[in-house]
């Protein structure tokens, strides 16, 4: 039998598939469609100290094999997440990864301290890479020094392991990753969205009210694969990979690159059942390719012991 279990800091995963932050709300909607217990974990929508409305609409636009979003971290704020959203998720036997955002280091610290105490929150994901907010967000994610500072500050107060979410909008992703590892992060999640934009043919203006937005979906998969391939060879903390995953094949590509688990974002909008479908198909795909345990796939593209000849296809 193929085995899908993965152990990561704070996360004992029955399978390595989880919905990505911001693409699954707080689980309520998808709970109406299927049993959330099948999921490896759930990354909930970014939580900030205060409630946020986010950006004006339109907030999404379609692109070639991708989409842009400029939600702007809309969320009900820390208190409501603690009293209403997380308790709802307690009835499922699924570890929650809480996505934490803010404009100042203090914001991250405050949210991290409180939310990490919630019984079903098993890990934090620091969102220092959101391209859709003016302050904080991506600014934290493109400077290794600042990224390290916020990581360290959060590590000091968090009751659970801390994963840091990397922005792909940088020249040297390894530099940031290494700084974050050195600052004490327990894992990395990558990638957040690429900055992008679309124009309306008729008005000549950007389609998104916010102008720019974050590019996600199948279009960005090769960028994520390349970054994970590079970073996984340099750091020794695990990576949860994401960006355009739609199928079990995509999951394996991420594992080969060096991911130890993956998250599925945009694909949930296209097929709300995509996560359970992938979880169901992955063992068959693995069996077909001769794998018994998903861990055999991790870093296969660069690990020496992976005994497959480098053959011209």
């Amino acid at each position, binding site marked *: 039998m193929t085995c899908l279990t993965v152990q990561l800091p704070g996360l004992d995963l029955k399978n390595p598939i989880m919905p990505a932050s911001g693409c699954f*709300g707080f689980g309520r909607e*998808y709970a109406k469609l299927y049993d959330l217990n099948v999921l490896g974990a759930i990354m909930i929508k970014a939580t900030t100290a205060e409630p946020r409305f986010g950006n004006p609409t339109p907030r999404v636009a*379609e692109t070639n094999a991708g989409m842009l979003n400029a939600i702007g971290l809309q969320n009900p704020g820390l208190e409501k997440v603690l009293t209403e959203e997380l308790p709802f998720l307690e009835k499922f036997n699924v570890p929650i990864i809480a996505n934490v955002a803010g404009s100042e280091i203090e914001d991250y610290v405050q949210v991290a301290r409180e939310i990490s105490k919630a019984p079903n929150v098993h890990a934090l994901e620091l969102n220092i890479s959101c391209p859709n907010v003016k302050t904080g967000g991506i600014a934290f994610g493109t400077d290794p020094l600042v990224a390290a500072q916020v990581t360290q500050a959060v590590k000091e107060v968090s009751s659970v392991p801390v994963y840091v979410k990397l922005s792909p909008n940088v020249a040297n992703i390894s530099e940031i990753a290494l700084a974050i590892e050195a600052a004490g992060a327990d894992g990395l999640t990558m990638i957040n969205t690429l900055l992008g934009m679309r124009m309306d043919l008729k008005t000549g203006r950007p389609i998104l009210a916010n102008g720019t937005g974050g590019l996600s979906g199948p279009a960005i998969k090769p960028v994520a694969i390349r970054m994970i391939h590079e970073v996984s060879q340099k750091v020794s903390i695990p990576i949860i990979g994401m960006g355009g995953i739609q199928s079990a094949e995509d999951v394996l590509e991420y594992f080969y690159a060096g991911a130890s688990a993956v998250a599925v974002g945009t694909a949930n909008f296209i097929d709300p059942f995509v996560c359970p479908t992938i979880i169901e198909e992955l063992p068959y795909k693995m069996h077909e390719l001769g794998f018994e345990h998903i861990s055999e796939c991790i870093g296969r593209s660069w690990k020496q012991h992976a005994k497959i000849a480098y053959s011209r296809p």
Partner: protein
Amino acid sequence: MKKAWMTVISQKEIARNIYEMTLEGELVEMMSSPGQFVHIRVTEGFDTLLRRPISISSIDTKKGRFRITYRADGKGTKLLATKQSGEKIDVLGPLGNGFPIAQLNSRDHALIVGGGIGVPPLLELTKQLNQTGVRTTHILGFQSKEDVFYKNEFSYFGDTYVATVDGSYGTKGFVTTILDEITPSFTTLFACGPTPMLKALENMYPNENVYLSLEERMGCGIGACFACVCHLQDDPQGYTYKKVCTDGPVFKAREVVL
């Protein structure tokens, strides 16, 4: 709400670029409220990644069929217009909250106002209202004669007035031009159409019972992604909100910021 492969039964162009498609499949069992919509995956590949929200324009529970009526305009709807009888389409639905009609009865008079591609959901609405004995009057607005559709269908259920912007059919002007002329009395107003039209109606009838169906660009269509939110009128700058996909698309006038 469910995701199902539905079969195209028929597809025809009923006005310039306006297509009416009949679909058959199990989803129909769950459809009842007029004003709900479905979220359609037009292609399986990457050519149109996101689903397209389209209103249900009529429901035939007995035959297990429903209709959508849409304008072939952008990439997705143009592709949808190429689908032929027998093809299968991936449909998620029914979604959203439709027009509230339970409280109306045969003593009521509903005024139904539709603009352009906002007209379709109103057809199932007037059908259901008439079934419970509600009297309906319809005001429909289009750009031009070639764009007019469903005039006969609405006439079957009640008085129907049509306005065209260029005057090539019916009254020259907007639906509001007709409303100014005939000043109808009604107990409830239901409307769907472009935002400027909805705003005009909201201003025109500040004290009446008015329901408006809104449009917004959507991601998930089921309430998870926060793409389709709008502010509330009593907190226009705050963080309270409604989602068009799950709280709407139909809202009471003056509830949300248009």
